[in-house]
């Protein structure tokens, strides 16, 4: 291989050399003069930049708007630019005085300059698909996870967020682009990093590169799209800004609708009666009717019963607990109002030689889920120094933060539930505390095995979850030989984390309640470095404008992390078995109980078993050519080499081509007055992806792991012999996931710059999906390598429109408004699977039957199982229906998909699609006098949700967990022919309430009620949400300006004021899950809680 790459390098150099020679030898020089005025007011414009296009020759206008500039060779195009005005361009014809030049006030964004792959472009020159995020809108909501703010702000971008403070969000660009990880590449100031913890106030601009034309310069890492973030730089006057916000977040008014203890008792009796059994229950007795007891410990006791005397209280043997007869509201036991604050201060300024920005941020949010919080301190220092007449620029961008984010974890040591799912599983006859103030729980007999939600959260209160991170880069740029710029940048990230958790003896639980306590600590670090070198050539001659860029990039990632546990800590409070946090160090635990593990870490969107290391080396090139500012052409190529593939498959080459035509510049459209700008563009390109692939994929590896391969061959009971096992099979033939995008777009500005719109159609074909296909069990337990297995395609439309409006003379003042709508729509389809494979089943974590299946023609993630078409109404109905296991009145009737009159595995079908038909965001901004108003609406339409909460609350035959009110009230009532209650096996049994879709309550689980994965829990997940309403008032006045105030604004804000949806769960925006299994609501942290915030923005000059 070295030969081949060497050759490639040589060729690149020869090309570079040719450009060098081409540009050599221009030497004549003229001086031009002129005067710049504003078109509307004819006032001189001071400080406008006058530049010879494509060169560094530039000057600025002086106070009267005049300028003088030496022009080498006397030829070229002069560009005059000034903030707030359209650029003017004048082609030099030899005349030295250009006279008066009028600049038009700019309203369009066409001249905005965006950072795209390794370079910057004006919007009007862009030929790829790029969404530009309005940073002001982005900042309109406070959040501890900055990426969540992208929701609805850029067309083509879908964001799933969680309500947990600091919880990670999932960002998808143009839908699901991989079966593994769809997270886009985020480049912050040229360094791959995470948006999650960036201080949103530091952001200067956010661009989203969506298609191959825009993103393929990022090659392997670009296939999920690229988000380019540029942080603010200093410059201009010295200024101090202070932005502060305080707020409070309210829990949802209503949790799940659950049955109260009286309803629960009656439902329990029905369970038995429907199955033809005599009802009895540890708590509700064994009479003809259930009796809600006064005490749940002693089991099912009434007041005055033996053992209810407080003097007989004992933690394990008689934990006296009153029944909560009205039903405890567990949801609001764990969700309480919470506060939030965001404090930001920044100082910036600069001279001609240097500029700087320093910013400090403190963000603190308590979760509405008790004992959860995020606290983050961050600081940024950006500076640039220019030397040698600005021919050399040296600078750095540096961001550092510390955060503490304990809380919403699946508490280690607790069986099968986090606190939110526990809150709908634990019966509400259980109060939070027993009579002595210790936790009550399912240790009171006969009440299922859910852990106690409040206890779970309280016990995490002192746990730590800390991150320290620094990222940034240092760069140097040198302009030479007039047309060349060489740049080198070294950057990276270093992250260090520490977590600890104490696991108490959960004495209140039904199961595992005598486990000794234990304590665990986890430490680790992640690091990445990136070294980028580029050489840029730019030249403008006649009507030609050519930019060529070439470069190299080397990226390496590594990390290590370890976790250690010890048990049997000294109990400092024996009444409730707690241990003082002062003793939470490893040495206080019993050394013989120590277990150690290398951790699996997720960092910047990649998940790896530690220790890990992988590297990427790339060569890239880019060529942009414009003719007459009308015809635009761009091509990029990147050759990536990745350490995760074996040498034979290591290198991938990813090209792209795009072209644009600014039709509005054609003479035949010059006189169409309503059309300000019209551009048609299209492109084709290829990208790669290795997201989420195991870095050791090519290797067959063996592990030596205590719980996997040790065996006590000597019968010692404590000292097993170390053994080995095949951990994974490698595949040296695995290669790049390839992603081919075709994109056609139209950008237009119409009606005198009042409307900007952009519409794009795309097709994205992802071939050779990197995926671990399902293999037969005969494989054994070793994990299998990622294979290039199958293709999926996304076709879609991205649409964005902005209306800039003005209403004159509303009460003698103008009212300005901007309305921006974005729409994201994609259709996902599996195009092919590996030869011979008809489907790949997607089995949820923990095993069982598949929930989804990848099959040609179906969308990734589509739900696959039995489709419920109703309930059997009576035995005649059962007889005439296809043969179905355990069919009986009041149970589910499944669709006979293959019409063979038997319900079996072949009748499983695709019954729902969690992919939305479209998502849309609407930003409305209005300003009037000193007031400003902003509203953001977001909608997701056409997605299905599996409300998996119902699998617990609607099927009491599960664990004896809490039932829903719906099932207690509206379950199918089984009666005989004379209308009297009977059991389902009675030949005359029939459903008395035929309209219901809720199956009869039963003790037994079977294929026709709860054990088959079916469509019962399917619901529509469409919703419309008012994410933000903000009303601000700006106090600025001449008097304040004299006091150096440049800005003084206060605002009031309401988040999540309303949600319109038919979905019955807490929040229709459910956690995303994986790319092949999502849209399943098992009780997620809701993200639709109302917040009320008050803020202030101050800038001092």
């Amino acid at each position, binding site marked *: 291989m070295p030969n081949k790459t060497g050759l*490639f390098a*040589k060729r*690149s150099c020869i090309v570079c050399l040719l450009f060098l020679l081409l540009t*050599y030898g221009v030497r004549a020089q003229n001086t031009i003069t002129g005067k710049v005025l504003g078109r509307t007011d004819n006032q001189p414009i001071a400080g406008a930049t006058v530049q010879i296009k494509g060169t560094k020759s530039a000057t600025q206008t002086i106070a009267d708007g005049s300028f003088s500039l030496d022009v080498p060779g006397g030829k070229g195009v002069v560009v005059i630019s000034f903030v707030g005005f359209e650029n003017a361009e004048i082609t030099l014809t030899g005349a030295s005085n250009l006279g008066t030049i009028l600049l038009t006030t700019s309203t369009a964004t066409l001249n905005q300059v965006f950072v795209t792959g390794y370079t910057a472009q004006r919007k009007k020159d862009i030929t790829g698909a790029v969404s530009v995020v309005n940073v002001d809108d982005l900042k309109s909501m406070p959040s501890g996870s900055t990426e969540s703010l992208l929701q609805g702000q850029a067309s083509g971008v879908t964001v799933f967020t969680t309500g947990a403070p600091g919880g990670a969000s999932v960002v998808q660009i143009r839908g699901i682009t991989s079966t593994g990880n769809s997270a886009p590449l985020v480049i912050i100031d040229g360094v791959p990093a995470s948006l999650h913890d960036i201080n949103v106030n530091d952001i200067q601009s956010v661009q989203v590169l969506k298609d191959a034309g825009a993103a393929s310069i990022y090659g392997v890492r670009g296939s999920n799209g690229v988000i380019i973030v540029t942080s603010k730089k200093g410059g201009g006057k010295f200024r101090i800004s202070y932005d502060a916000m305080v707020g409070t977040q309210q829990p949802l008014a209503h949790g799940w609708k659950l049955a109260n203890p009286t309803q629960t008792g009656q439902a329990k009796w029905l369970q038995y009666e429907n199955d*033809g059994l005599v009802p009895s229950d*540890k708590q509700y007795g064994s009479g003809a009717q259930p009796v809600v007891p006064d005490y749940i410990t002693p089991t099912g006791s009434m007041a005055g019963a033996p053992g209810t005397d407080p003097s007989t209280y004992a933690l394990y043997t008689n934990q006296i607990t009153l029944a909560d007869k009205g039903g405890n509201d567990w949801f609001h036991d764990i969700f309480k109002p919470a506060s939030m604050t965001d404090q930001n201060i920044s100082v910036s300024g600069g001279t001609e030689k240097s500029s700087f920005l320093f910013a400090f941020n403190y963000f603190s949010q308590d979760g509405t889920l008790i004992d959860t919080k995020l606290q983050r301190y961050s600081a940024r220092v950006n500076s640039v120094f220019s030397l040698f007449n600005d021919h050399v620029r040296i600078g750095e961008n540096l961001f550092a933060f510390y955060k503490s984010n304990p809380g919403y974890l699946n508490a*280690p*040591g607790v069986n099968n539930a986090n606190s939110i799912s526990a809150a709908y599983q634990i019966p509400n006859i259980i109060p939070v505390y027993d009579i002595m103030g210790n936790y009550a729980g399912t240790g009171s007999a006969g009440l299922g095995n859910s852990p106690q939600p409040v206890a779970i959260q309280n016990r995490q209160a002192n746990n730590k979850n800390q991150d320290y991170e620094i990222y940034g880069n240092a760069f140097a740029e040198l302009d030479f*030989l007039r047309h060349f710029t060489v740049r080198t940048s070294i950057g990276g990230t270093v992250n260090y984390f520490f977590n600890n958790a104490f696991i108490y003896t959960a004495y209140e639980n039904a*199961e*595992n*309640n005598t*486990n*000794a306590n*234990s304590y*665990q600590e986890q430490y680790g670090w992640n690091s990445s470095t990136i070294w980028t070198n580029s050489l840029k050539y730019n030249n403008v001659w006649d009507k030609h404008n050519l930019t060529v860029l070439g470069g*190299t990039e*080397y990226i390496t990632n590594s990390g290590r992390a370890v976790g250690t546990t010890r*048990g*049997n800590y000294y109990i400092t409070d024996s009444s409730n078995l707690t241990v003082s946090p002062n003793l939470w160090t490893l040495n206080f635990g019993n050394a013989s*109980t*120590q277990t150690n*593990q290398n951790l699996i870490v997720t960092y910047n969107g990649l998940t790896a078993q530690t220790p890990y290391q992988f*590297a990427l080396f790339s*060569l890239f090139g880019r060529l942009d050519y414009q003719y007459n500012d009308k015809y635009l052409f761009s091509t990029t190529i990147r050759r990536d*080499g990745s*350490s995760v593939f074996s040498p034979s498959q290591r290198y991938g080459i990813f090209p792209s081509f795009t072209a644009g035509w600014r039709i509005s510049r054609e003479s035949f459209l010059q006189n169409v007055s309503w059309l300000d700008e019209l551009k048609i563009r299209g492109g084709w390109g290829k990208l790669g992806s290795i997201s989420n692939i195991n870095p050791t994929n090519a*290797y067959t*590896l*063996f592990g030596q792991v*205590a*719980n996997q*391969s*040790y*065996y*006590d*061959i*000597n*019968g010692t*009971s*404590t000292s097993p012999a*170390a053994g*080995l*096992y095949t*951990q994974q099979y490698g595949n040296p033939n695995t290669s790049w996931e390839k992603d081919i995008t075709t994109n056609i777009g139209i950008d237009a500005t119409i009606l005198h710059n009042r409307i900007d719109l952009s519409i794009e159609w795309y097709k994205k074909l992802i071939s050779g999906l990197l995926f671990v296909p399902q293999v*037969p069990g*005969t494989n*054994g*337990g*070793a994990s299998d390598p990622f294979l290039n297995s199958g293709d999926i395609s996304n076709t879609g439309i991205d649409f964005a429109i902005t209306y800039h409006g003005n209403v004159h003379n509303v009460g003698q003042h103008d009212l300005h408004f901007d309305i921006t709508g974005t729409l994201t729509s994609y259709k996902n389809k599996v195009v092919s699977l590996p030869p011979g*494979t*008809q*489907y790949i*089943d997607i*089995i949820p974590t923990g095993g069982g039957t598949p929930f989804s299946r990848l099959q040609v023609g179906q969308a990734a993630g589509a739900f696959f199982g039995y489709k419920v078409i109703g309930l059997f109404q009576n035995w005649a109905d059962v007889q005439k229906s296809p043969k179905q296991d355990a069919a009986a009145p009041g149970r589910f009737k499944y669709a006979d998909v293959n019409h063979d009159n038997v319900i079996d595995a072949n009748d499983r079908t695709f019954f729902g699609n969690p992919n939305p038909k479209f998502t849309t965001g609407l930003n409305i901004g209005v300003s009037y006098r000193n007031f400003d108003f902003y509203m953001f609406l977001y909608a997701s339409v056409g997605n299905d949700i599996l409300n998996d909460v119902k699998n617990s609350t609607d099927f009491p*035959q*599960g664990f004896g967990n809490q039932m829903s009110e719906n099932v207690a009230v509206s379950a199918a009532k089984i009666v005989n022919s004379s209308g009297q209650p009977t059991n389902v096996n009675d030949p005359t049994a029939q459903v008395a309430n035929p309209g219901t879709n809720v199956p009869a309550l039963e003790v*037994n689980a*079977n294929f026709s009620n709860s054990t088959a*994965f079916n469509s019962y829990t399917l619901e529509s997940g469409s919703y419309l949400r008012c994410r933000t309403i903000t009303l601000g008032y700006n106090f600025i006045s001449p008097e304040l300006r004299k006091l150096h105030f440049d800005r003084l604004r206060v605002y009031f804000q309401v988040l999540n004021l309303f949600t319109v949806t038919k979905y019955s769960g807490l929040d229709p925006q459910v956690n995303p899950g994986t790319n092949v299994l999502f849209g399943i609501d098992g009780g997620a942290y809701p993200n639709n809680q109302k917040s009320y915030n008050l803020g202030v923005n101050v800038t001092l000059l």
Partner: protein
Amino acid sequence: MKSKIKIFIPVGVLLIAVIIYACDKKLNIQPQGALLTTNVYNNSGVQGLLIGAYKLLSGEDVPAPGLAYGSAGSNYVYGSNAADDSYKGSTPSDQPDATAIESWALNQATTQYVEEKWSVLYTGIQRANDVIRAVRLATGISSADTTEYVAEARFLRGFFHLDGKKVFNNFPYVDENVSYANNNLNVPNYENGAYVNIWPKIEADFTYAVTNLPGTQPNIGRANKWAAMAFLAKCYMFEHRYSDAKTLLDQIIAGGTTAGGTPYSLEPDYEANFNPPQKNGPESVFACQTSVNDGSSTANDGGNGDMGDVLNFPYGQGPIGCCGFNNPSWNLVQAFKTDANGLPYLDGSYNNSPLVSDTINAWTGTVDPRLDWVAARPGKPFFDWGMEEDSWIRDPNSDGRFLPKKNAYSKSQQGTYSSTETVFWGATQIDANNINLCRYADVLLWDAECEIEVGSLDQAETYVNMIRTRASNSSGWVYLNAAYNSSTGTYSPQTTPADNYNIKPYPAGAFASNGQAYARKAVQMERRLELAMEGHRFFDLQRWDQGGPNGAGSMAAVLNNYVSVEKNRHSFYYVVNTAVFTPGVNEYFAIPQVEIDAENSTGKVFLKQNPGYQ
């Protein structure tokens, strides 16, 4: 200017070349924290792989968290719950897969347990195959060692296949040529219009092990020649080849030793087989070795202890604080009734009222003393934890009144033979009891069956009486008002037996005088009592059915009869009262639908579901 270019070009070219060369080389990154084939293909590597294969005897394989109950090394779900030994326990549909298995309502919708069993067995098989594959590629291993490693690996491979054969019947045989790399994982169980017979291949593995393994091993937990012989005999028992089995069993009884070289014999005290400090005694032919507090526990699994039985402990506020699964059935407890002669009721009348441990009008007659080591009963000591009581039962409607004991440990063993590695949710329920996979009593009783079919009824009676005589040793009984010595598994003082115990050997010549049918009943009953709750009962009924002494349909008759009585008692079948055992179907379990889906995903049928399952 030109001179500048002259400098720039070579410097630039050189720089780019250096960068490309250096960075390309840096892409060769070897994995960290794992061994490569080059590290493993040697003597110690192969030894390590072999240990890793033994590890799978526990049935616990945790690439995916949660696997264990369906694949428990003790086979309690299939061998005991699905037969008349025990109920699943807990609430009716906690672990719904176990409900489906116990009520013989297994269909493709509820396949997680069977999938656990299936995948854990093949993990064991492939780990054994890894040894065979590695030994061929390894260097520096003597031919004697090579033979030894391969023989042990083939023993394990045979063991896992035999287990799969018992549970699934049409279980594909996977040898060392089947691998991910060879892309031949779709191994058929059905070819040319018929299910594939894998018995010859299982026998070949055990035969190789018999031929090539020594009688004495350096480690007590290793399979030796005698263990291999016992499992080969077990294959013959399942194939109803009694003469072949008898030849081997006679040899074992005549000269067999444990891996430590101790001649096989019955432990003086029955409980010694189930008491962790007494593990690997002279009765242990082959067992899964378990260990605790060895740094092996994780958040998702209990490490190297007896993970499979993690649920089989008293409920809630009872000792150990768990889940209340695998409750001995009313029927099983009644089977321990003895008559005035100290013999079991072979006519089935044991199941009539009055019942042992009934709340009203309880049985006042005599019982077999083994009962109180098999099942914890109300008012009887649960080791040194105190008397068992009804509050330890999770759901009195469906769980009966009894708790399993053979997998449990005593209070004084807590922390020593039970885990304190508490990051795992159920650490207290992880213990270091051996899982007996074959004990000498098993060998004697097989040989007794062989004697009945192809030998001497008197000799069969001798074997059965050896078992009964040991059980009658009063030093190994359970006593009231006595201290429990957890290192010897005995009580003192031995003055008040926990119940009215009476057990006697069959009178000399009883088998011969009552005839073959009587002898079969006696041996079958003895197997049930002696090996109760050890995961064998279902497979014994299966073995005695078609082709066996009781004939086709006998298993269905036993189990349907069992349900017809149990559904009127507070038992699993009181709640799941529609359970029916279908003869010709439920003698084996369903092949997991996910495996059928996976092997047949090309459209061609490699794996065919067992007859009678949808």
